[in-house]
């Protein structure tokens, strides 16, 4: 598939010498949802700002729909909708006027039917005549999205769409993004919530300290970093681990009723069979087994530590 956004060796450094982006390269395909995952200060927002025209690029290149954002900013920006992290709205303006204003800024003729559709799809239609200040935080976020969608962008940037939002609203937002996928809009979202990337994205780009550490299909990423933990429920509490089991990566729960065994699914042998055999030889009775896949969070921590 053709890349709708193509970033090549993008660098951003500030006058004080701080390098916010250290040569980022990334291709984003049309219609996909990609999550930029990284801790606070990793450079996610700077990267978005550089593509959207809010941050001047020090060196390198960013193309949106084939247009260089520095050389042909108008043509590039027409394709982009941006929802920044902060809820920035003219609080005294009505929802309808705010959304209409953005469409005008992008040089498009008035289209009430389109704005109606956008507002309805975000469940904002019955709030259209309300002043923005009358809306809840979640609703304000929706207005920001409606504004970004008002000019039919091909690419939508969502910077921390669920920052400071409660669990229900977060699920709500996930649904909104899911619905966007169906409209064919390419979505780039940033988050430091792993579960969010896991929930919404097709691909995940892990970014830290201004560099992209890896870009991978979400499910592949989860697999390739597929550490699993096997939890064994014991028939009787175990006071100490027998000497013969010292070679295994085992940890005993405080009450001695459980053993946890960490292993890597990528290894040719996971060692499970041998462990069970050795346990039996020691006369340790196993009542139940449970294995859990490590979350993206573990994957992420592994990565950040590995490359730090």
């Amino acid at each position: 598939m053709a890349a709708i956004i193509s970033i090549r060796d993008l660098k951003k450094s500030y006058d004080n010498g701080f390098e916010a982006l250290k040569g980022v390269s990334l291709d984003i395909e049309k219609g996909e949802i990609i999550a930029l995952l990284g801790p606070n200060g990793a450079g996610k927002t700077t990267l978005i700002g550089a593509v959207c025209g809010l941050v001047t690029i020090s060196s390198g290149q960013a193309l949106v729909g084939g247009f260089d954002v520095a050389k042909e900013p108008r043509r590039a920006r027409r394709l982009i909708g941006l929802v920044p992290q902060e809820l920035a709205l003219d609080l005294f303006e009505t929802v309808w006027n705010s959304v209409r204003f953005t469409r005008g800024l992008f040089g498009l003729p008035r289209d009430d039917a389109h704005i109606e559709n956008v507002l309805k799809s975000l469940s904002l239609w019955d709030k259209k005549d309300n002043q923005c200040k009358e809306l809840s935080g979640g609703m304000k976020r929706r207005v920001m999205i409606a504004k970004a969608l008002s000019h039919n962008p091909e690419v939508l940037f969502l910077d921390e769409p669920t920052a400071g939002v409660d669990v229900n609203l977060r699920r709500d937002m996930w649904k909104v993004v899911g619905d966007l996928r169906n409209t064919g809009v390419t979505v780039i979202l940033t988050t430091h919530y792993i579960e969010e990337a896991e929930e919404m994205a097709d691909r995940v780009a892990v970014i830290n300290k201004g560099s992209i550490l890896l870009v991978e299909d979400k499910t592949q990423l989860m697999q390739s970093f597929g550490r699993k933990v096997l939890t064994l429920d014991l028939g009787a509490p175990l006071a100490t681990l027998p000497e013969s089991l010292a070679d295994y990566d085992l940890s005993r729960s405080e009450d001695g009723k459980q053993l946890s065994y960490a292993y890597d699914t990528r290894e040719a042998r996971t060692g499970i069979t041998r462990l069970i055999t050795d346990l039996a030889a020691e006369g340790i009775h196993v009542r139940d087994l449970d294995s859990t896949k490590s979350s993206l969070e573990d994957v992420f921590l592994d990565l950040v530590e590995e490359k730090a």
Partner: protein
Amino acid sequence: MNWRAIGAIYRFEMTRFFRTIYQSILSPVLSTVLYFVVFGAAIGGRIDTVEGIAYGAFIVPGLVMLSVLQQSIANASFGIYFPKFTGTIFELFSAPVSFFEIVMGFVGAAATKSLFVAVLIIATSFVFVDLHIVHPIWAMVFLILTALSFSLLGFILGIWAKSFEQLNIVPMLVVTPLVFLGGAFYSAAMLPGIWQVVVKFNPVLYLISGFRWAFFDVADVPVTLSLAAITVFLALCLAVIGWIFKTGWRLKS
């Protein structure tokens, strides 16, 4: 040129103006009425005429200019400062809009608003004094040029300001004194000796003098000088705007 964007900004700003219509219109009109009462009726009763013009009428051009300067600066500086303050300015910079188009939208709206107020004040003054405008076209030209250039100045201030305090300090500490000392309520000829020279360094004197000439055919300085002064000032503001545009000063990181 993204005309629709200019229109969108202009409309958005004008909506704000009409949303706060009482504050936008009532306060300048009320203060003008107060000036008429205090200067025109109370003091004017003792002054009789200045350069052959009834004092009450003589102060009208100065009063209008006072409002136009204050309103232009206030409207334009607030117009651009507020999005900076709330963060909505990101929208302007991420849209396919050039800085020049942003300036046109904001400054156009700010100038429109102050022209609106100016016309209202002139209309009000007809109630209080006997007025006859000798060169109405030139009066319009001076008004429009002044509204535009001081809206540009306001825009620059709004970009410069980092706090609401800074936003208010220039109009309060610089512009108001310049207007009062610029012959709004007197003719420069009335001043003693050296002050007649000092006052010539006040740029606002040229504005008020030119505008007064358009009203009464009477001026402190030649009208061509007034016209030149306002043109130079306009060019200066445009140059600063151009420089901000080039460097992204206080706007982009």
